């Protein structure tokens, strides 16, 4: 049962990592246009180089 002392912190840590990733993606406004994102994958417009980033229009979340 001693292994629990390692496993529990590890599982919690991984969960926390996921939570942090979620918080980051939320603040980076990745949920603003889910429909568009799923459609954009089909276009080859920015296949070679990424699009210039949208300037943040929300002063609270400078990304």
């Amino acid at each position, binding site marked *: 049962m001693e292994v629990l002392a390692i496993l529990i912190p590890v*599982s919690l840590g991984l*969960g926390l990592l996921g939570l942090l990733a979620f918080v980051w993606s939320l603040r980076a406004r990745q949920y*603003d246009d889910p*429909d568009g994102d799923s459609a*954009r*994958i089909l276009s080859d417009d920015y296949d070679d180089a990424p699009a210039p980033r*949208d300037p943040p*229009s929300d002063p609270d979340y400078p990304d």
Partner: protein
Amino acid sequence: MSATEYQGAVACPGCAATPGAATTASGAARREEVVLSLPGVHCAGCISTVERGLKALPGIADARVNLTMKRARIHHDGTRTVEDLIAALEKLGYEALPLDMVALSSTETDRVGRELLMRLGVSFFAMMNIMLLSVAVWSGAADATRDLFHMISGAIALPTVIFAGQPFFKSAWASLKAGRLGMDVPISLAIILASSISVYETFNSGHHAYFDAAVMLTFFLLGGRYLDHRTRAVARSAAQELAALEVPRAMVLRDGVEEMVAVSTLSVGDLVVIRPGGRVPVDGVVTEGASEIDRSLLTGESLPVPTGPGKAVAAGEVNLTGRLTLRVTAAGKDTSLARMAELVAVAEEARNTYTSLADRAARAYSPLVHILSFTAFGVWMWITGGDLRFAINISAAVLIITCPCALGLAVPAVVTAASGKLFRAGLLIKSGTALERLATVDTVVFDKTGTLTLGRPEPLNLPGIAPESRAVAATLAAISSHPLAQALAEAEQDRTQVEEIREVPGYGIEGRWQGTPVRLGRAAWVGATGGALTATWLRIGSDAPIPFTFADRLRPGAEDLVRGLMAQGMEVHLLSGDVAPAVEDLAKRLSIPHWQAEILPEGKAAFVSGLVAEGRSVLMVGDGLNDTGALAAATVSISPASALDAARVASDIVLMGQDIAPVSDALRISRQSVKRIRENFAISFGYNIVAVPVALVGLASPLLAALAMSISSITVTLNALRLK
């Protein structure tokens, strides 16, 4: 509305405080932002077409389509106007509407939505981790291991509940203070009771801890809350942003100098200049100039009315042919337009008394749950002879099991699915209860001009007229912004050489063709006697005048819609402020049995109220200011996005595209969603019927609570997704 008048409305949010300055400081280059609503975009191809098409224009720095919100955000260097961009998009085949940047800045940041999403994420993380530990306990971890797992669960659950449960605690507290028992009271009670009992049990090495239930409850209910918020936010923002279609600025004449000012600064006695094509911002009397004004939005008249010095004009009318100077008689809140909007607000209040299905369910549910829980507590105290710990455990279990998890999701899940579907069809649901009210509709009342028709005339007898005359007429018509002239110029492509063309505001256009004077305009002006049909007359020299007759163009989908409604057995009415022949003609074309012409705004409202008083459920579809009373009086109302502000405010649903056919989708989907909502209530009630007795006799375990909660929430959500 002219290009310059728009600058103020579309400036970036940061400049909202300083009208006139429409630039954002981004290095030395001017950088302006425009947001357009694009009801027609729907696929990856649309995105590329729009973005590439816009970026190909000179002066455009960047264009990005948001497919979820169906809008495009465009950055340009200040050389482009909104009208330019809209015209360019139209050429690409997309309808575009400008949005109000000031209103946008307040809705787009959507702080509440993001906070809810954050709480949702945190409670999901907590739920999953606690569940992991709980599974170990359920499968037989005992003694020290169980206590340790409970403690870790508690360490995760307590901060989570305190952080994520805030929306419920706040609203429960607010409703308690107001002396009501809302849905949030049993929710908060269940969460708090479950957490505190679990803490107590954990420190006393108890067998059952409900940390997982407390967090799961928070998670599922937050999900429902978020869906609810999103639907409402979309509706609210749509209403606010479209408000920008009104004229924000006006040209005022002070000491002989023309000056652009905000409409809100105008006062009685000011002289205001209105250019052809501009919308009148105030009530006033014409002091100078002759023109024709389009009153269709206010009165439903499809034909322009001539105006001149001494004549009164009202806010909301559109000046068509000549430049007008007005002396302001009423501005801002005193204009007839604003007064009508106020009347609407009063009528709205009356309608807001409609209680939604969810509210009705909550009203019946909350007291029942509390009574049940307290009874269980009392009975078990009596049976066990005063075992407080056991009795509290039972009553907490009852609260947790009955907690309206599925009930909290039942309505939002369906409404979200339905409004998503309708949004894709081009309809915006502004009111939360609109779907429920729409489902009951048995009578549909239409306005004519601008609703069933586009308010744009279409020439009828062109093929029967000599090509030469057609070319002359079209050449003359091309210089005017009168709707009949524009329709003629658009329908007839041939042009010829006509000299000395000039427009006589209020009468028509004249010129010289091959040496003979030619005139196109009102019957009396060209020396003809007008008939019943809408017409403009052409006279070449001293030949007999030739009439060009027009009919209002039908809105796409209107025929199918009316036919579909009649096939569903609905009673269809047509009410219009326009003259009888025009209304009769349309009623015949669409085979609408009941129609009334030349009806006043009060008459429309009274007619609709009469139908409602008869016990009918009325859907009013209208766009004009003369419809607002009727829109507000109806059970539920729809207006096109091209409608006046006041009409859109008064209606529950806004039709974004030109096509009116989605209205029948709305009716179908609304009936389906109400069915789904009822099914969902039945499902959650069914689970309670099974689970409550188990909890009452004291057999409920955390495992059972978790199962009941998640299964009922998932079934309810899946049921909502069945919406077709």
